[in-house]
């Protein structure tokens, strides 16, 4: 799980063009959305693309994103339980 979280940090920085942010700036349990990283609804859609592109997981309803992308940990947990082996 921790390895996946570390991998996700790099992928998110890359996918969302967070150029001034270092992986260690993103804490595993902090909310991804809200003040911290300044992400918005378009970033949420990009994260949906990221899940499909890197992990083969499709999200049909954008409303589901809210829970899945709450934090790095929730995202990693979702990936591990949904990834096709």
């Amino acid at each position, binding site marked *: 799980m921790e390895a996946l979280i570390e991998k996700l940090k790099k992928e998110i920085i890359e996918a969302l063009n*967070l*150029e001034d942010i270092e992986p260690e700036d993103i804490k595993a349990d902090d909310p991804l959305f809200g003040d911290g990283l300044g992400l918005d609804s378009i970033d949420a859609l*990009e994260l949906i693309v990221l899940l499909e592109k890197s992990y083969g997981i499709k999200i049909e309803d954008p409303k589901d994103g809210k829970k899945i992308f709450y934090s790095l940990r929730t995202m990693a947990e979702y990936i591990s339980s949904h990834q096709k082996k």
Partner: protein
Amino acid sequence: MVSKDDITITGSCRITGNSAFLNGEPYFSSAEKEAFPVFMKALYKKVGPGYPKFYKMDPLTKLGFISAELLLTDNARTGLYPEQSRGIVLMNASASADVDRSFQKTIEDKEDYYPSPGLFVYTLPNIMAGEIAIRHKLKGENTVFILPTFSMEFLTDYVDLLFETQKVTCCLAGWVEVDDKDYDSLLLILEKGGKKKENAYKLPFTKDVLENLYKPD
């Protein structure tokens, strides 16, 4: 001689060939060989707005955004006017073709088909106007024209007309063009009436003055 009721230019920002000029003075430049994204990032760091959303913007929006940032950071002339009467008039030749191509790349390959929402939202030239509007609270009339070349005659005619309606009392106006490796911009702050706070930089808004500001250095 500028009369009290004429439209005046109270700020100008010219960016081309890896150089930025603010009010006619050199502001920043980097080596000619540096690519546009590198130059843009260096300029962003120099202006230092601390606005990470900048990195998500497409090249066209970056160019327009940073020009507006340069003009309004230390000298927020638009702040002298009500939000609803601050307008934006932009023009260019290629609309959003540059980012259109980037988005197209995400959908053209069946094996690697991941349409990017983050790119798609910038595939309209007026998103650039929108981002500037958000940043500087310019809530008045805003428009983007597509013309083959920078027509100073059209710009002066249109802005005259816009100020005549009295719906707009100040505006950001100019030419912001990006197409692949080529980029070129001249953005201006325009005001009418001149009864507000005086500004050291003040030029009449005429075709001749525009040509002078736009001409290669």
